[in-house]
């Protein structure tokens, strides 16, 4: 039996999960490609397959007597190099796209200078990447856009100062090009990329000749494993817009319920706070949904709300939670309306409240809204599993933990490191079990 694929098309990211015949997760894929759901699906799927190849590779290294002693650093290094190869491939593609845009008719007078500036700029991005990817712990959860975007901006500022080319022009080129770049699948196979990575690793690592040979063998073996997908199910916000058959589409409510059960079989209540909606779900001992509530047409109090707040404060989304944890005199915020959030925030700041104190209040407000949905869905029953992007936010988790304790007493609260994949896992499980007629 082959693999099953679950795709969760969220409003901000698309997730893919590959399960093997024993329902074990072998691959995870995540992309922020947004403009087109078909591309997003393809990108997430290919990422999940690459990730699966790494899973196989890890197993092979672990069980190879010649390599197992150095397995962890070796794999980490290999994976970093692999991602560097991929990253540079994309940087080059982006460079070409920028140069292409720069060749537009209206830019002809600037073109020679533009070409020089762009090339200089991308050379530096290239160099920096080589450096940053070689450190031991690269944050692989960052998207290409996030990494390249800030570098490009900083370098463009420099270049425009030196070259008298307007910053706006450089940024305009980037904005156009990154969209194109983001919306295409990577045209670099696992095999090609891993071979380049192995070459590089072989040169740098303190591997013996024998070990190098062993490494090449296991890599080859892992790369040659085919990932035959037997069935797939799509879920999530964008599921309607995909050319999936009807029986290959499941509601995200069902998928989240089953996915949460997969990670924590004791789960009875699930809270999912995603970009655009919040769901409170009750499941039975098999992970089957028995009741649910979700926010109405208004996205107040969802992940997107935090996005606005982050923009308003000129912070990254991931900085909000840690900052809020530093609150000393938390502020009570009542409104979770995304439209009013900015205004309320500015007002509070002008009244002299500290950023972290306001942020603490904002997190609490979101969770209060979720608590009301939970109550409406039938309350919270032990165990309680929290999923979705917001489950990664420590301030949201803290607010939730407190409010759960206050309202329902002590509960086991589960948050899985792979929680963002909950819906995709549920989808992949449906793909396996519907096929066999177990439904």
């Amino acid at each position, binding site marked *: 039996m082959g693999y099953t694929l679950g795709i969760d098309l969220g409003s901000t990211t698309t997730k893919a999960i590959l399960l093997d015949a024993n329902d074990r997760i072998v691959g995870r894929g995540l992309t922020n490609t947004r403009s087109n759901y078909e591309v997003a699906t393809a990108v997430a799927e290919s990422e999940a397959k690459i990730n699966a190849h790494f899973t196989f590779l890890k197993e092979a290294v672990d069980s190879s007597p010649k390599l197992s002693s150095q397995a962890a650093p070796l794999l980490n290094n290999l994976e970093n190099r692999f991602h560097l190869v991929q990253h540079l491939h994309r940087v080059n593609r982006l460079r070409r796209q920028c140069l292409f845009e720069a060749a537009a008719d209206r830019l002809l007078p600037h073109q020679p200078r533009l070409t020089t500036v762009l090339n200089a700029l991308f050379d530096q991005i290239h160099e920096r990447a080589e450096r940053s990817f070689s450190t031991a712990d690269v944050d692989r959860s960052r998207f290409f856009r996030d990494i390249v975007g800030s570098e490009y901006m900083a370098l463009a500022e420099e270049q425009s100062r030196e070259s008298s080319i307007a910053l706006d022009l450089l940024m305009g080129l980037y904005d156009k090009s990154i969209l194109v770049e983001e919306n295409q699948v990577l045209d670099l196979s696992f095999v090609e990329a891993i071979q380049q990575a192995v070459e590089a690793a072989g040169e740098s690592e303190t591997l013996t000749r024998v070990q190098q040979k062993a490494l090449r063998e296991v890599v080859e073996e892992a790369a040659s494993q085919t990932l035959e997908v037997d069935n797939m199910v799509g879920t999530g916000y964008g599921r*309607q817009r995909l*050319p999936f*058959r*009807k029986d290959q589409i*499941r*509601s*995200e*409510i*069902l998928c989240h319920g089953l996915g949460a059960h997969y990670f924590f079989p004791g789960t009875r209540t699930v809270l999912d706070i995603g970009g655009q909606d919040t769901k409170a779900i009750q499941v039975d001992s*098999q992970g*089957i*949904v*028995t*009741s*649910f*509530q*979700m926010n*109405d*047409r208004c996205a107040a109090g969802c992940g997107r709300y935090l996005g606005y707040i982050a923009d308003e404060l000129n912070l990254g989304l991931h900085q909000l939670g840690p900052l809020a944890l530093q609150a000393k005199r938390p502020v009570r915020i009542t409104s979770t309306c995304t439209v009013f959030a900015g205004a309320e925030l500015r007002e509070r700041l002008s009244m002299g409240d500290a950023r972290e104190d306001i942020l603490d209040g904002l997190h609490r407000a979101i969770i209060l809204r979720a608590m009301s949905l939970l109550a*409406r869905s*039938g309350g919270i029953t032990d165990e309680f599993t929290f999923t979705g992007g917001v489950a990664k936010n420590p301030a949201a988790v803290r607010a939730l933990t407190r409010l759960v304790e206050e309202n329902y007493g002590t509960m086991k609260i589960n948050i899985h490191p792979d929680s963002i994949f909950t819906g995709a896992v549920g989808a992949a499980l449906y793909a396996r079990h519907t096929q066999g007629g*177990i*439904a």
Partner: protein
Amino acid sequence: MTTPPAARPPEIHKEPSMLLQKNMLADYFTRVSKAREEGKKIAYTFVPGNLTELLHAFDVVPVYPEINALQNGMRKRSAKFILDAEKIGHSEDVCTYVKADLGMLLNGNVGPTGEIIPEPDILLLSYTGCFTFMKWFEILKQHYPKAEVVMLQVPYQGEGTPTPAMREYIVRQLRESVIPAFERISGHRFEEDRLREQLRRSAEAEEGLVFALQSARRRPSPIDAYFGGVYYIGPMFTAFRGTPECVDYYDTLREEIQNRIDAHAGPITPEGPMAEEKYRLIVEGPPNWTHFREFWKLFYDEGAVVVASTYTKVGGLYDQGFRHNPDDPLGTLADYCMGCYTNLNLPTRVELIEKYIRDFEADGFLINSIKSCNSFSSGQLLILRELERRTGKPGGFFESDLVDPRYFSAANIKNRLESYLQMLDQRRSQAVA
């Protein structure tokens, strides 16, 4: 990959009874607009607890602001009306029927069919459970200072059963204040026999309505008792009850449904006969009118048929045995008013829906929680939990509004309905396994 079905002409299927009703409504609005010229008096009144037979006995033309509001909603006119009412200070939280009505008034009181609705001579306020009724007519009274207001206090069914004293209380009000007011306004003396005649025809037509509603017990159900149901209650709940036209309408309806029963056919949807009955559902709460067809489509596309609904009981629980009784004309009006769905307490509502779930062999039930209707919406989550507990059938919860298009999110509702139906599938297959 599926290929999209070939584009089909947007032909909308209508049953003969629907066409008949359409003409009846058009005639009615014309009659309303010409009432003044014909020397007739006009009463504004509410659907729940309406005394249409009595009004007809005085030759007074009834106008139902709720019906105008919903008709305007279906015709996409309500959005502007609501905004206009908000502009003069009615908050976002006020019942949107009220605001749609006021907005229409502010825009020259041009009714749903484009004809002017004349000012009321009398505002007959039968108070049947919804507090908004009172406030609504209080506001109308400010706009129409010349109109007389008559209030009929209908005791709320807080204990669940009407008592003889309550009945007597209503009859006394009818005799001492409502009837004298209508005599004064219309210039006609009250003739009990005219009322009896109306009531006799009401009872006859009521049999037809009940036949229609009960037909949904069959498999497949020949009707949709919510989306189709709102049409079937139309004549009965409004200006036609007690008239010969109303009797004719229900004869036509009966025949039409009988034909479908004989043919083992399901309901007729705007896109033609419904294919397969996959889910039998009960719905509590009014529908959304601004996206009525879209809302319905979400159901029939999935093979979901509503086999019973509570909204179709706002103007009387005929299916539970009530019939207007010509032998006790005022007493029967009292019974009628007390029994309207809006006047029932939560335990009675739970019992009724529970009964529907069992009698109609439903797979589950849905609640459409209407943002602006406190009368329906408060307590609905308690109803949901209690019904789940009693029947073991899963409940689903939607949120929308009556006539405010801002509160209808098709994507959100579709998502919930799909999730709900998939949950039913899951549970069914689990039960089999």
